């Protein structure tokens, strides 16, 4: 589905992503790594917010490199940005409607999509007419995921969805992600919370200093010495 080959990204003279190769099929994959490893840069270059210096990015056989962000999103890739980035002055339902308003296939099925999102996140239905900015952090994160799902993505990208949430909410959020995965959406998850992340993903990449250090299945990562020592605190 998504294939990235030999990707290099630089900000000025500093190279942030080094010769990065990975792929996502009909599965959930994860990027794990510390702050500054290049996880967000990688996501931004997939959706065209950052332009790579070299390499290839293909989605369902088509190159994403010369496309604008809004075109890439319309191809079926949805992003939940770090910290959610909602529109606080709009209501919950308006935030959700924006998710499908500019993607033709999703727009025609807006009411179906709303039902789908409300089924996964019932709290959003209760709060439908509340201003997004007045909800709690956990609810806002749920709304951000719901908004991304409104676009009927085939690939859902989440940039550190657990950041700033209390542990019980993180658990709840990842339970929801597991449900979304079963609905036939491919997931690309970037996380620092490796313990929770490993519950959802099928395969994972450990990213350090802009390069892949380990690539393996979720079970193997759980038992990997480096992962245990650096990320799981065992």
């Amino acid at each position, binding site marked *: 589905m998504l294939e990235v080959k030999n990707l290099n990204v630089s900000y000025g003279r500093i190279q942030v992503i080094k010769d990065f190769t990975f792929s996502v099929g009909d599965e959930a994959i994860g990027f794990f790594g510390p702050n500054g490893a290049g996880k967000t840069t990688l996501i931004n270059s997939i959706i065209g917010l950052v332009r790579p210096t070299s390499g290839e990015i293909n989605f369902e056989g088509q190159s994403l490199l010369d496309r604008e962000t809004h075109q890439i*999103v319309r191809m079926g890739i949805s992003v939940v940005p770090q910290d959610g980035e909602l529109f606080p002055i*709009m209501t919950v339902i308006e935030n959700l409607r924006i998710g499908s308003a500019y993607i033709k296939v999703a727009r025609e099925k807006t009411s179906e999509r709303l039902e789908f999102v409300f089924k996964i996140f019932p709290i959003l239905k209760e709060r439908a007419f509340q201003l997004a900015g007045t909800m709690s952090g956990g609810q806002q994160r749920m709304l951000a995921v719901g908004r991304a799902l409104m676009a009927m993505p085939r690939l859902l990208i989440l940039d550190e969805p657990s950041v700033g949430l209390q542990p019980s909410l993180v658990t709840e959020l990842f339970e929801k992600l597991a449900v979304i995965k079963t609905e036939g959406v491919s997931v690309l998850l970037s996380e620092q919370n490796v313990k929770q992340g490993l519950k959802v993903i099928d395969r994972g990449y450990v990213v350090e200093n802009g390069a892949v250090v380990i690539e393996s299945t979720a079970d193997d990562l759980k038992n990997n010495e480096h992962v245990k020592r650096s990320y799981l605190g065992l």
Partner: protein
Amino acid sequence: MKIAKPLLILIVLAAAVLLPIVTEAYFISIAITILTFMTLALSWDMMLRTGQLSFGTAGFFGLGGYTGIIAAADFGVDPVIGIMLGGLVAGGIALILGMAILRLRGLYFAITTMALASVFMVIIRNLHRLTGGPSGKIVYNTLFNYDSNKVYWFMLAIAVGTVVISELFQRTRIHFAIDSIRADETVAKSHGVNIYKYLIFVFVVTSIIQGVIGATYALQYGFVYPESSFSPHYLLLPIAMALVGGIYSTIGPILGAIILGLSSEYLKLIMPYGHLVIYGVIIVVVVLFMPDGVYGAIKAFFMNRKRRLEER
């Protein structure tokens, strides 16, 4: 409440249409001026809703005026056609310029649009043959031959049309694009909004409105003159009206235009030349004590009252 709102709109509209029957020419001329500035204020606010502060209002106003006068004087077209041409030329130039300057943001966009009015003025002042150069140009075939009642109804129709466009921008899918661009461009892009396309669209639509108003204004008096057609007056007054009435809404600029328009006429009568001082004081007081404008303050008052009633 649901029936009250359309009824109120209907009453206001009927009163506006019947105004020339009950009043004299002096009030009609004031009403025409207020409608002119109201429409300019509304068009400026429509661009502001995308988060872009435009200072190009006077520029497109002047372009429309010159187009209308040249069309009527040199090509002998009917003034109404001249007004349409004024809108088309302003819109066409906005499209070409917009493709370049809408890559800019914030103050850079604001300063560039501000320069536009000066550039237009310098060009027009130097095209002697076509525009009459620094001494301006006159036309004898004015809009409805100085029949101020007809001019008033014509202006009212343009104002109502602008209100309808403004409400369409607020109520259809376009408002998601406009509001999300203002809130956060990166997130808007990430949800499939073609930012550039929508900015150009709004810029062109508002410029057409400004061009139409400029042509109507010029053709009702039958002359254009560089310093007055591109006067910063047509930029600053609409902005003041929108700020006083309340930005990001349709009703705000309308209220602002009526409040400032009427008070300026009244103050002019009781203290000639001194009226601008009080005028300035009104703007300062409103901006200081009602940061969301008069309409924002009214809305907040009713929201508070509703909340207090619910708490009882």
